[in-house]
């Protein structure tokens, strides 16, 4: 059976080290104030520490990252937003990888009713922000309202 890596607590977040001696930092940022929400809202991210060159395939990395989300929702009814980095133009690849991980490792989740929605915000400069929002199923509507509720003016739903 596939086993996720052990995570350790560090300043500013968490980290784990793989069998290939690669270390990943994982973090949550409290962005509740930004959305003026009654429910806690976190931004979530992770990254590989100080490594150049090829990264050997390691299925336990995806399992560990999704396990962290599972662990989060086992003890929180809060909401997580995931917005991929875009400066290197690889945001869609990141989302694709994340979706593969989610589909592959969801069967290991302990927390029930964990789900995600995705909203692609497009604005005038033809730029997109793709926001993935994670929640436990009873929180779907409040989660979406946190995003939409922060849109007091006009918005159009194109599909």
């Amino acid at each position, binding site marked *: 059976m596939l086993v996720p890596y052990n995570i350790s607590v560090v300043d500013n977040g968490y980290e784990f080290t793989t069998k290939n001696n690669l270390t990943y930092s994982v*973090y949550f940022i409290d962005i509740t104030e930004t959305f003026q929400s009654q429910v806690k809202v976190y931004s979530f991210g992770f990254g590989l520490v100080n490594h150049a060159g090829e990264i050997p395939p390691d299925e336990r990395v995806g399992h560990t990252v999704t396990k962290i989300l599972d662990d989060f929702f086992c003890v929180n009814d809060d909401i997580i937003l995931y917005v991929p980095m875009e400066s290197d133009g690889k945001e869609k690849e990141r989302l694709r990888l994340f979706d593969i991980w989610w589909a592959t490792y969801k069967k290991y989740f302990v927390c029930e009713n964990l789900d995600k929605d995705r909203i692609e915000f497009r604005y005038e400069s033809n730029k997109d922000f793709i926001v993935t929002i994670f929640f436990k199923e009873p929180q779907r509507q409040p989660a979406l309202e946190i995003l939409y509720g922060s849109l007091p003016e006009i918005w159009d739903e194109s599909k």
Partner: protein
Amino acid sequence: MKTKVINIRNTEFIKKIQKIVDEKEFIYQKIKEGKFKEIKSDIKFARPL
């Protein structure tokens, strides 16, 4: 998973999302440099686990 596409004209909202992205870019660079644990900033890191 449900996916929606929303056309938006609200610049305040765009700033909120841009702030999240900017923070991630900053943190990503620090992680790459091996300096994640040393970040001192206004970013509200949390350890909710």
